[in-house]
């Protein structure tokens, strides 16, 4: 089903390889997102403690730092696996792309290194450093975590909009690492990812404490955590909508086949409407529940209400993504969840402004509880949009995924082994975080929040 012109054995080999890297990356993305978001929240909470002297903020920061430590360790391991898998699964891609897009990978290595060191200082320095010095050690963690995400996503942006090299007689020449890294998609894609990570963490934290309040633990500790999460969300969620729009324009300008797939445009249209339904269902290639807003897609993608949007059927068959349906589904899911999250964040803040305190009715708390997992899902879906939408290319328009897969046999075995490991590791991490969360916060008796 992947590329119909290839022999079945190659297809299954390729599918297994894709399934393995997909499993690894979706697992790693969850930890990477928290690894980027939690340091910022720790920093803000600890900063609030320094400013107000309120010990609840310190207890929160300290609790989050423990969770961060655990997740960072798991993320380091899953990151190690992925750095190897690039070579184990896609050696031909790496031989080709390593020399072009190696710069952000090396810089990411450096940023991760810095993050690890300061994470060590921060986690074991709570009682060894002065409060101010300790807070300052949190700054490089938050900075290098965001930098890591930035560097890795520039590499993904390059896969979508490749620049900075030429191919002469099948060989890569004229490499310009900076032009490759700062390709036309770098700014929008990296902003979208970093904001996505901050939002998922903010909603995730609010969600955990909303569940606590639903279970009757209504105290300052829980209220402050929710207030911080929702403040970040209320500021960043509208920003994310704007960045998402810009990213959509980048896709429209540089990846026409991807745009057609994720927007569900089968035939070319002049003055194309934006379909807010169009859910792909097997047997209905054009999707069901059409709800089209006239001319909006043309306007959003090309700034002209009568611009022509190319349909998927204008591309040669081998160049169309075989995953158009899943790509469209992931896209609708991401945009739908994003819109709902903006509503949740703004609704919470409007009521908080009106009433003076945050709403604590069961409906609001249930909405907050659901928002966390949904925000993480939106991140995973966004990544799927990028990957499914780019197929059949690993580097858009230049290098096919089917030419990148390893020639080495045995992918079935490694995929099975890694899947078992990931399932086990997920269960274990979930269990450990729950145990950690079940303990009363440090100094909880003094805080009166037991």
């Amino acid at each position, binding site marked *: 089903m992947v590329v119909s012109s290839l022999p079945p054995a190659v297809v299954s080999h390729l599918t297994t390889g894709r399934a393995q890297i997909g499993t690894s990356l979706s697992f790693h993305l969850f930890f990477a997102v928290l690894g980027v978001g939690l340091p910022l929240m720790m920093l803000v909470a600890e900063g609030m403690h320094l400013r107000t002297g309120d010990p609840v903020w310190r207890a929160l920061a300290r609790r989050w730092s423990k969770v961060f430590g655990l997740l*960072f*360790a*798991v993320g*380091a*391991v*899953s*990151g*190690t*696996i992925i*750095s*190897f898998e*690039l*070579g*184990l*699964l*896609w*050696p031909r891609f*790496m*031989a*080709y*792309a*390593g*020399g*072009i897009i*190696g*710069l952000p990978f*090396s*810089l*990411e*290595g*450096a940023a*991760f*290194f*810095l993050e*690890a*060191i300061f*994470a*060590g*200082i921060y986690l*074991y320095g709570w*009682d*060894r450093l002065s409060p101010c010095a300790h807070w300052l050690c949190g700054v490089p963690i938050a900075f290098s975590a965001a930098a890591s995400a930035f560097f890795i996503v520039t590499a993904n942006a390059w896969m979508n909009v490749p620049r900075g090299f030429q191919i002469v007689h099948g060989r*890569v*020449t004229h*490499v*310009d*690492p900076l032009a490759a890294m700062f390709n036309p998609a770098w700014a929008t894609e990296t902003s979208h990812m970093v904001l996505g990570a901050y939002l998922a963490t903010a909603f995730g934290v609010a969600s955990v404490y909303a569940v606590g309040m639903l279970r009757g633990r209504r105290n300052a500790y829980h209220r402050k955590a929710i207030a911080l999460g929702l403040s970040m969300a209320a500021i960043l969620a509208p920003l994310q909508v704007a960045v998402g729009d810009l990213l959509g324009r980048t896709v429209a300008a540089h990846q026409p086949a991807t745009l057609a797939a994720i927007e569900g445009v089968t035939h070319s249209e002049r003055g194309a409407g934006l379909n807010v339904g169009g859910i792909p269902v097997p047997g209905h290639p054009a999707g069901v529940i059409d709800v089209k807003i006239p001319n909006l897609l043309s306007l959003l993608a090309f700034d002209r209400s009568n611009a022509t949007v190319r349909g998927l059927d204008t591309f040669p068959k081998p160049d169309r993504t075989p995953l158009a349906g899943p790509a469209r589904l992931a896209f609708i899911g991401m945009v739908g969840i994003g819109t709902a999250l903006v509503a949740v964040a703004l609704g919470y803040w409007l009521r908080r402004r009106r009433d003076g305190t945050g709403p604590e009715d069961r409906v609001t708390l249930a909405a907050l509880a659901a928002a966390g997992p949904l925000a993480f899902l939106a991140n995973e879906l966004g990544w799927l949009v990028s990957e499914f939408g780019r197929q059949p290319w690993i580097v858009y328009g230049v290098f096919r995924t089917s030419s990148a897969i*390893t*020639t*080495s046999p045995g*992918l079935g075995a*490694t995929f099975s*082994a*890694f899947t078992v*490991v990931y399932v*086990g*590791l997920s269960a*274990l991490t979930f269990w*450990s975080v729950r*145990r950690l969360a079940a303990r009363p916060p440090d100094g909880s008796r003094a805080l009166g929040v037991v």
Partner: protein
Amino acid sequence: MSLADLLALILGISLTAYALFAGGDFGAGILDLLAGGDAPERAAIETAIGPVWEANHVWLIFAITILLSAFPAAFSALGTALLAPLSVALVAIVLRGAAVGLRASLDAGTRSHALLSCLFGAASVVAPFAFGLVAGGVAVASRVAVAVPSIPWTGAFAIVVGGLAVCLCTQLAASFVAVRLARAGETRLLVHVRRRGLQAGAGVLVLSVAALGVAATASPALFRRLTGAALPLIQLGLAAAALSLLALIVCRYRLARAASLLTGIALVWGWLVAQSPNLIGARLTIHTAAATAPALAAVAIACGAVLLGVLPALCLLFVMFARPRPEVIE
């Protein structure tokens, strides 16, 4: 020295750092396995090696990113030929981290605690063994001049190197734990750990000599390199291994620790010098596998950033943890 040589040197340094840091960590897992149900001995191992800090893998990730960005053809060949042993090593790394993390939250003496300890120990043996197989295989293949060499990671030389890696890790960890125990005056535990160190140290000596012997018959080309350009390093490694063993016999633990660190450094560099400038097979060398000049320059700048930003921070970390921990107030 060309830029490619410089990057290869940095690659070697980060591999050495990984071998020593992660080696001590793996060794701690092996000692833990050998300690059986002895809870105080396990606790002593854990405090001496410090919190099992998976961030040791930064050295490995750093080495891999240099390899993939500066020598992409070598990274590609490595990944293609070594899918199996590298996958095994990765699974082992995940399992040991998970097992030790989970075990920390369980009470000693329970069935699950014992099971997780077994898993932690077994994975701690498997990971360095698999990396040893890879190193041994790559070393032998580096003298084979075909376009796409197969890497004999199941050959006799690779298996001996795998065993050597396991012994070296154990000896490293034992000498570190012994220093800590001697300082704390824990005589009973010290006797146990010293015995492990002696056994592992003897293993290092025997297997290093055996590796040379196997190389002489299995890969004369590699043997000529090991006893040629790399000879001073190999001699240094053997001498340091012997010194470490002697130091343990006469209970000079700090000397044993220094000597086992030196053994690790000398043997890793003995391997690297023996196979240089070849990376994977004789055709993919530091020069033929190198990326284009602008790409190399970019990676070199990234390495410079590490030197400027990361090394001072690393020093800060070590200084901070070298000081005794103040009483916890809360």
